[in-house]
């Protein structure tokens, strides 16, 4: 008997929840804000769906109703990807250790 590929995806999903659970508990509380902005950025990997939708046009017709939604989704996700990673970078750059030399 063959196993439905859905079951494989479900397994990945459930195991990832557990991975997420343990990884996030180990995040230090002072970095919870960067955690939120970086999860924001990575959840925009939904852009892959948007790209598939946008490039699915048949010959000639670049803007059909389905590609149109794809383009919109690409723009939104791109705002999030660039915005999310850059703002995280900016925040993390501020976390410094105490300087040895006291001025």
């Amino acid at each position, binding site marked *: 008997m063959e196993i439905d*590929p*859905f079951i494989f*995806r479900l397994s*990945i*999903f459930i195991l*990832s*929840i557990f991975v*997420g*659970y343990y*990884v*996030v508990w180990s*995040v230090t509380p*002072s970095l*919870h*804000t*960067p*955690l*939120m*902005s*970086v*999860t*924001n950025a*990575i959840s*925009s*990997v*939904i*852009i*892959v*769906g*948007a*790209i*598939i*939708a946008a*490039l*699915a046009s048949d010959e000639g017709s*670049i803007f059909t109703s*389905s590609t149109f*939604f*794809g383009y919109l989704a*690409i*723009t*939104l996700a*791109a*705002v*999030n*990807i*660039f915005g*999310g*990673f*850059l703002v*995280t970078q*900016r*925040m993390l*750059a501020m*976390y*410094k*250790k*105490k*300087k040895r030399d*006291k001025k």
Partner: protein
Amino acid sequence: MISANLSAIFYLISGVLFILALRGLSSPETSRQGNFYGIIGMVIAITVTFLSVGNFSSGFVYVMIFLCVGGVIGAFIAFKIPMTAMPELVAGFHSLVGLAAVFVAISAFINPEAFNLGYPGEIKLASLIEMSIGAAVGAITFSGSIIAFLKLQGIMSGAPITFKGQHLLNALILISIVILTYFLCTSQNSNLFWILIGISFLIGFLLIIPIGGADMPVVISMLNSYSGWAAAGIGFTLENTALIITGALVGSSGAILSYIMCKGMNRSFFNVILGGFGATDQSSKDKNKEQKPVKSGNADDAAFLMKNASSVIIVPGYGMAVAQAQHALREMVDTLKKNGIKVSYAIHPVAGRMPGHMNVLLAEANVPYDEVFELEEINNDFANADVAFVIGANDVTNPVAKTDPQSPIYGMPVLDVEKCKSVLFVKRSLSPGYAGIDNDLFYKENTLMLFADAKKMTEDITKNL
């Protein structure tokens, strides 16, 4: 064109890189590297998608254009946004993820062939269910985040909006979403799909309006979690491992943050979600509103007290963010340190409007992170400290939470500020905090109230030191 198996492996790699991105955040030293892994993961996922579709016609050019437009807007926002506006920014970004999920679900519904899901009107049942879940959760995330954004931005009042029959209405809408999904799957009727999205927008809106401003840490974390589940739903539809892994990671991350925030307020998740907190009956407030004596002082008194102290603990709160006082505060602390006074910072888990809000602001003001402590780490030190400097915090210091079982915040973990030899309270007025209850600390003998704008007061103290 690359094979489906090869691209699946690359999606798996980018999923693993996203896990490493979160793993990096376990300490500030590894965090930047973690963020870098995240970026690589994203680049891999996008590149592989282009290669697997293999369509480099004029459509590709448009994709790049839209990608760049979005990217430039995102980069611009990321560089311009002040650190105090981080909660609004995160709420705004959540709404974009939600809306993107809705759009992807819509285009998959209109053109299922592109995703190998069947044909319009004959979409595979499992895909249709996944699609509906992704679209509904995405829509809830979108409208909920918009409300959270408006409340945080102050465009909409932070006060909870409640009306009679609210919970019943919400429950009915949620049930109707389930029923609609069922009929959508049996009939494949596109009208039902649009209605489903419409009422999901509505429920997102209705779920967030009754939740007050200071509960925003929970709301933002919750919406963070929702955006993850929406992404996972779409991931199942598209049979994409990277999306499924990421969705699960983000979903559980947001859920854990919500849990931590609820615990910081000693409230159950449902209590927060049902909302209305802080709008409690006015009568009980007026009842004990007899005038109690308060000692108030000026910057000079505060400077005198601190100069003669040997250790000072700073307790920042949302008021510091509002007044943008973090830089002035750090200057004050620098002056104190020059005088040989030991200074540390105590941060309550729910201080501010989002998890870790205060830490980011202090980091922005160049406060070294090893001087900043969490509640459990520092709470015992208050008894040995000379001065507690409370700037813009209120409810999180209220000793009532430990003493009065009648109080709405009873049981909430609070900072033991009252154990300090003396307490300085920077506040604009005597008004009660968000929970609508008086803070006993104001009337304690060893408390000195400093009525002023947080930034101005800190600057004045620095001058007087």
